[in-house]
């Protein structure tokens, strides 16, 4: 259930070639490194769990068992879906808002001066402290959680949208002007494509943060969702359930990240770097 997609790749072209078997061993090691570190992690966890009572640190075995139980009775998929159904619309809404504000800001100095203070302020707002306000205004249904998510993902995305839309170099802008391009053409054929690497960088951060936002919303008030599940486990001293909840969140966050990476590959954004 873990998707290890966030391996950092370092370009290794132009490297001096070493002898083949060594290279091969290196490649194998690199390939199985995530598996290795995961096994190590589980090993240490197991070893630690032997010296503490299960309600403080349950072992991997009992967590796995709880995990399977919760899948079998359908509650884990249900709560995970609830959380996703808050996080993904939240991500979408935050992204739309980021574009709605980022586009005018990137194009007009006036819009920049008018709106930028609010954007910077939005980052300063401790959303955990503001979330209760949202609950008062919008009730404790899913809408409020979607809004919390949107608030959390907004900042990293809007910053990248603005930087990205401004990133096209002056010669390319001159070229488009010399070719009599309309503003819409310049946007669609120059500014937006040039911004894609930035936008995806923002989406990757925002995508992971959207899970954080959804959980935070559920923690404050909810009767469903992974945040609720963790709260539930907490109040019954069901520590394995808490860990199941946390690991599921991590898994979902990694999946969202992976999905965004896939979209990035599909669009072949890596070509952009000229």
């Amino acid at each position, binding site marked *: 259930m873990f998707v290890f997609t966030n391996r950092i790749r370092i370009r290794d072209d132009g490297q001096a070639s070493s002898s083949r078997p060594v290279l091969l061993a290196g490649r194998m090691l690199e390939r199985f490194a995530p598996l290795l570190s995961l096994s190590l992690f589980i090993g240490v966890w197991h070893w630690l769990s032997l010296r503490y009572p299960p309600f403080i640190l349950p072992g991997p075995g009992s967590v796995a068992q709880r995990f399977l139980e919760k899948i079998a009775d359908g509650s884990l998929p249900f709560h995970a879906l609830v959380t996703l159904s808050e996080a993904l619309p939240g991500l979408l809404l935050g992204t739309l808002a980021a574009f709605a504000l980022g586009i005018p800001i990137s194009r007009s100095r006036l819009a920049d001066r008018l709106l930028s203070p609010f954007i910077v302020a939005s980052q300063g707002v401790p959303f955990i402290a503001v979330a209760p306000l949202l609950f008062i205004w919008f009730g404790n249904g899913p809408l409020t959680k979607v809004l919390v998510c949107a608030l959390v993902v907004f900042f990293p995305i809007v910053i990248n949208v603005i930087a990205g839309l401004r990133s096209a*170099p002056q*010669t*390319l802008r*001159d*070229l*488009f*002007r*010399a*070719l*009599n*391009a*309309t503003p819409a*053409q310049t946007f669609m*054929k*120059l500014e937006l*494509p040039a911004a894609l690497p930035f936008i995806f960088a923002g989406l990757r951060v925002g995508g992971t943060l959207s899970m954080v936002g959804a959980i935070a919303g559920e923690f404050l008030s909810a009767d469903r969702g992974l945040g609720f599940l963790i709260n539930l486990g907490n109040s019954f001293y069901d520590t394995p359930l808490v860990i199941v909840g946390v690991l599921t969140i991590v898994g979902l966050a990694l999946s969202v990240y992976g999905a965004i990476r896939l979209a990035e590959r599909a669009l072949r954004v890596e*070509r*952009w*770097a*000229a």
Partner: protein
Amino acid sequence: MLIAEHISHTYPNGVEALRQFSLQLSAGQFMAIVGPSGCGKSTLLRVLAGLLRPTSGKVWLAGEPVTQPSPRIGMMFQDAALLPWRTVAQNIRLPLELGWRGNAHFSVEELIQLVGLRGFEHAYPRELSGGMAQRVSLARALITRPPVLLLDEPFGALDAMTRENLTAALEGILRATQTTAVMVTHSIAEAVFLADQVVVSSPRPGRPLGIVRVTLPRPRHWGMESWPEFGHLVGQVRALLAQPLVEPARVN
């Protein structure tokens, strides 16, 4: 064909880039502009292209004033200015997708043939050498068959050998397409090789110090560099560049 009348330009920050720069070019001719760095050559070219409105003075193209970018003027920059997410062929056809409203244009295939890039139609810019990228840039500038082509140090970033090849190729292509051209360059030999007239500009603020007319026969080839006449022309340009200024250069 292309006339610039008393172009002066001072940037908003107070830098006076051009002072009373005039030039005149008839159809099919090639003009090279040489001058010290920072003397306003790029500024002049941007004015000619309609990208920059001069503080005073006028530009005329075939009897009509140039006040904004026109599809009748093609432009080539020092860096190739290719879109990295488009293939060679897609980059070349970009002008056809934008503000261009004519109909008589080259086909992408013709141009790829003309600039010698067969087999690279589907390559991306980062897979090209600097010289190949400039060939793409040239093809893109030519696709709408603009009567006038403006080139701002198009080969400035290339090595000497690639430069010579491209210069010779450019000479042939412009002759074949009967394009009128104005090119800014740092290389006196390149200017003499390509041009019908070489305009020498003063240091900033730029104004013409003199014009050297080049009467070498066409097609040109680099073998001409060893001709006495070629050396003589290069000497004339050098002399103009080294000429003591009537008015002392201002320090600022």
